[in-house]
């Protein structure tokens, strides 16, 4: 370990971190119970290897592209649920809320001939309104979120049935909406966006590091920053390279290549919400309320407003999930957003490393967790397992994730790292 020290902020002398000491500290935090998304990433790699060995088709470009549209709805809902879970609350109605929003859009598009932008706007507003009502009931009236959203879960299922006239199926033909979950970007745009993403991440990391160094504050070792940028670059560019290959069975009739449009949509929301949670006062207050409500209240944070806002974000993201689900299915039916969607979404957030106890979690957890869920669903489907078996396996994995969460908390309490 290096003994070189630097004087930082106000004369507090600290050891200058090296690559070795950084990794050592990280390992120390993991051992101390601060594991974050590590189990999910390891799990994802293991699952991919298992399915890849069992079925050659798992690693095919077609299947890789499918994973995006299969996982998208769950990922969007899970991103919103991360906010709700950060406050230690739960939203059981998110699945059917996405169904209701999707149905609102589909009915306006098909039955009333609205343009896509109008219909999508109404779907998004529906999500915001639903979230506001849920949040109001939880924070101002004081009903536990479990009960409020359980009631909403039932009611939204009913609203969906009523909207669809007792169980008919409304199909959509709008090209824009259909493209969202089913089409791909042109090859050139795929590459441009991939490179922009890598360059943007690299630039932001390096500028942030330089700003801190200029103030004489402790910085991450350049080796670690470089490794992170390189890692992301490899990940994105390999993914783009695979997805820009020809995936059509008969390329002469129709050519299928490029990154699915839904991938950059996921990326945009991932970036927005990560920014909001990590870099804004609002995000800081969400963590504070989730960590210690009383401390937040005394610090002058409007706890009730924060509580309402997370439900609004939760249902808003559910509405986007609903739009994508309707787009992928080309239609809406009384089961859109029903069956396993909600449990998969909660599972995605928790598997990814968001704590059910509040105060701990990131939006990226929802994406990684959603990827785990999509891989299980997809891989087991390829291996010919029935949906019964899929549910059992997904349930077990959720249980494992929740146990990891609970055990890491106990571990953290034991090591004084509560």
């Amino acid at each position: 370990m290096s003994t070189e020290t630097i004087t930082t902020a106000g004369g507090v002398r600290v050891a200058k971190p090296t690559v070795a000491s950084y990794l050592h500290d990280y390992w120390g935090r993991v051992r101390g119970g601060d594991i974050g998304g590590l189990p999910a990433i390891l799990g994802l790699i293991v699952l991919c290897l298992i399915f890849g060995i069992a079925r050659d088709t798992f690693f095919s470009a077609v299947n890789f592209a499918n994973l995006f549209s299969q996982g998208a709805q769950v990922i969007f809902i899970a991103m919103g649920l991360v906010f709700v879970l950060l406050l230690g609350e739960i939203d059981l109605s998110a699945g059917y809320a996405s169904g209701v929003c999707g149905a609102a859009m589909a009915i306006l598009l098909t039955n009333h001939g609205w343009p896509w932008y109008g219909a999508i706007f109404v779907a998004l507003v529906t999500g915001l309104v639903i979230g506001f009502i849920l949040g109001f009931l939880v924070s101002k009236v004081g009903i536990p979120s479990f009960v409020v959203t359980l009631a909403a879960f039932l009611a939204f299922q009913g609203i969906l049935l009523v909207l669809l006239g007792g169980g008919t199926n409304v199909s959509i033909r709008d090209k824009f909406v259909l493209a969202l979950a089913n089409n791909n970007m042109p090859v050139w745009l795929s590459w441009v966006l991939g490179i922009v993403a890598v360059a943007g991440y690299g630039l932001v990391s390096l500028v942030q590091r330089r700003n801190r160094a200029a103030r004489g504050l402790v910085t991450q070792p350049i080796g670690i920053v470089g490794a992170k940028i390189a890692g992301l670059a490899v990940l994105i560019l390999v993914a783009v390279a695979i997805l820009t290959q020809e995936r059509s069975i008969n390329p002469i009739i129709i050519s299928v290549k490029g990154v699915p449009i839904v991938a950059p949509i996921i990326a945009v929301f991932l970036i927005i919400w990560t920014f909001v949670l990590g870099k804004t006062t609002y995000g800081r207050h969400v963590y504070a309320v989730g960590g210690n409500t009383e401390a937040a209240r005394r610090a002058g944070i409007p706890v009730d407003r924060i509580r309402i806002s997370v439900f609004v974000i939760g249902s808003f993201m559910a509405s986007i999930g609903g739009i994508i689900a309707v787009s992928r299915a080309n239609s809406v039916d009384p089961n859109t957003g029903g069956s396993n969607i909600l449990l998969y979404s909660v599972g995605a957030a928790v598997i990814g490393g968001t704590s059910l106890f509040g105060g701990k979690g990131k939006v990226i957890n929802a994406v990684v967790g959603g990827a785990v869920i999509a891989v299980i669903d997809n891989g087991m489907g390829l291996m010919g397992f029935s949906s019964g078996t899929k549910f059992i396996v997904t349930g077990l994995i959720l249980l494992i994730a929740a146990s990891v969460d609970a055990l890491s908390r106990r571990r953290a309490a034991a090591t004084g790292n509560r």
Partner: protein
Amino acid sequence: MAATPLLELRGVDKSFGPVQVLHDVGLSVYPGEVTALVGDNGAGKSTMVKCISGIYSIDSGTVTFDGREVAIHSPRDASALGIEIVYQDLALCDNLDIVQNMFLGREKTKGIVLDEPTMEQMAGDTLASLSVRTVKSLRQLVASLSGGQRQTVAIAKAVLWNSRVVILDEPTAALGVAQTAQVLELVRRLADNGLGVVLISHNMNDVFAVSDRIVALYLGRTAAQVKTTDVTHSQIVELITAGRSGNLGLPPEKPTDFVDITPGDDQ
């Protein structure tokens, strides 16, 4: 020794319905001094602090701050004046780091983005001005800190805002011997930096170790305001338990009609 008190309460009454909790209490806090507020459970210490912090409003009496009479109606008024209170349960978020906790609710921003470097620098400067050298990193989660370090963070949070009076509610109650010594040293340093410090404590050793003045409350009345050097350990214990000790404290016959006795002063 400063001549005028920074914060002074005079003749303060406070009732909750039919129950009068504070009878005509007084308190003077001088800059650069530690004033210990002692009293048995139910003597009115917490009520008095809550009146100063603006959580309760006073029924009658005056509060003077820096020579001006002020009205404190909310915690915001108190912090605007520069009065900060460190509560016993500290009110820190375990899932946030030291800098994040110190700036909670008053984050510095650049546009809409949190200005982390500035906050980290200010937090570091504050900790350094209190000669705190025990934390490994300013980006450590508060969860991983010891009880004494948490107390230090809570106190540093209170002095970050150019506060002038800091009220500490039982800062050493949950600490071990070494950590108690550390925190007391910090309390002394706050006063040496020119702040008016109010230390609420049950522990006589702590009180005699750091305080310059002692204010004893007895059943909602100010039993005595004395200089620490003028009294003994047992006199203070008597003031706390009986309200009087020798010629100090409340007269036995007419407890409501007491006098402020400050030995050395001709009042």
